[in-house]
């Protein structure tokens, strides 16, 4: 029990941060018209591609002789890039069609 309490204490900034972000996420898409649900889902999909930053950090710290880790890291960066680039481009293509006629 004390461990949990102290864990929260040491990480309080991040916990505040998480709680506020959760509410920002909810607020920011509240009241979106149905017509925009698909592009919005797709846009959000691109944003979680930020996980690629983690893959880059792994690669920067990887042991240069560990081929398993190198290949996994390489794969992770490829997949993360796919998520980011594909996500933003596909969202742009959808939204292009909503432009003013």
């Amino acid at each position, binding site marked *: 029990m004390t461990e949990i309490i102290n864990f929260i204490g040491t*990480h309080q900034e991040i916990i505040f941060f998480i709680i506020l972000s959760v509410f920002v996420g909810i607020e920011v898409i509240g009241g979106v018209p149905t017509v925009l649900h698909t592009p919005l889902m797709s846009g959000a999909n691109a*944003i979680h591609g930020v996980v690629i930053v983690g893959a880059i950090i792994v690669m920067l710290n990887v042991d240069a002789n560990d081929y398993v880790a*190198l290949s996994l890291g390489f794969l992770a960066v490829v997949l993360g890039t796919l998520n980011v680039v594909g996500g933003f481009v596909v969202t742009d293509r959808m939204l292009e069609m909503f432009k003013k006629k």
Partner: protein
Amino acid sequence: MTPEVLYNIRTITYIIASATFIIGLKRMGNAKTARNGNLIAAVGMTLAIIASIFIHVNKVQTETGVAFEQVETPGFIYSLIFAAIIIGTIIGWLTAKKVQMTKMPELVSMFNGMGGACAALIGLMEFHHNTGNTGALIAIVLGLIIGSVSFSGSVIAFLKLNGTMNKPVRLPSYNIINTLVMIGVFAFGAYMIFSGTESSTLLYLLFAAALIYGILFTIPIGGADMPVVISLLNSFTGLAAAFGGFLYDNKVMLTGGILVGSAGTLLTLVMCKAMNRPLSNVIFGAFGGGGASAGDGPDVKGSIKDMSVADAAVLLNYSKKVVIVPGYGLAVAQAQHIIHELEMLLEERGVEVKYAIHPVAGRMPGHMNVLLAESNVDYGKLVEMEEINPELEQTDVVLVVGANDVVNPAAKTDPSSPIYGMPILEVDKAKHIIVNKRSMNAGYAGIDNLLFYDPKTSMLFGDAKKALTELVAELKTM
């Protein structure tokens, strides 16, 4: 520049990127600003990625305080990172540019799976560097489990949308099995965190178990519910990214991940609300599954009235008000351009034409809007369900193109129907209904539709594009 300055520059980039994510999402909620919002978020993401690659400075705790140390990374690792980014960019760009509009939902699902897999791989690689650090291990193991579930779940969703796997697969008492597997996976995860084990075999077993759970989780869910599932898996990947942010104390991963996690969850619930079903019902429920409910057809069936293209053309030509109800059949047949042509032709002759958009028509909310926008249909002609329903009574002809479940009156009248309670387009109130369908096959929910037996309904069988092309040609001769 000192390492400290570099570190802070990276922090500033992360702050900017986080702000662009929030602004971007906000702007994506409005049709006018949406494209610009997407672009803003993309710019922020690019900045964050560049800063992460080029500024490799760690903040370390020393006896006297904190110090910043710049880390040298061998050149070939940089080459690998660049190679990976180039490969990912080319494949991602080409796929996103080339795919047909109708395949968008599948594609979103696929890209989502890639992000989940990326998070899972990070977990696989970081596990051994953090033995003994419980806080880090919690983030690693949860990121690994959620990322893997999101990956395998998205692949199944992709296969279902794409038609490769179109029947829900249900093991006997799958709900109990799934719950047990889920508990098992998390218990296994807890063991990995708290036992202090360093076994790679166990780690890969956990990875495999989480992948299997992702499959079991998605496989019983019917195709009609895939949009909800994709949205849910989307927020899962967000959560997995956020765990990565917690692990590296990386704020941009945290903001990006949590924003998508919470926004995605809300979006999922909004979609469920549009179908008037609780989320639990989508995940554990019995929608569109062969079984008893689907087999029980309505007791009283009238007869089906077939209609020729010429008759349909006459009926439409002499109407005052026509409402078109597009559905997935329109998307499959790529009939969005020809329907617009039909609409313009009718308008020229003084017929008022509107499109009735059900919130879940197609395979994703907003799917029909995107498709019709592609063929330049005026945005103002697309009317949402709540607004069009009261108008249907004064409508002369409703033309249903490839839609089925969203116009099924059983949702209002038959409490035993699996879609009972879902709000529908009340097209049976109109004076005439023309239904264009390829065949008498049931819709995605796998249930019969009483509307087709309504005396006011005439069936215009055939592929949507072909039938509408003939209809337009016929109208032009009149």
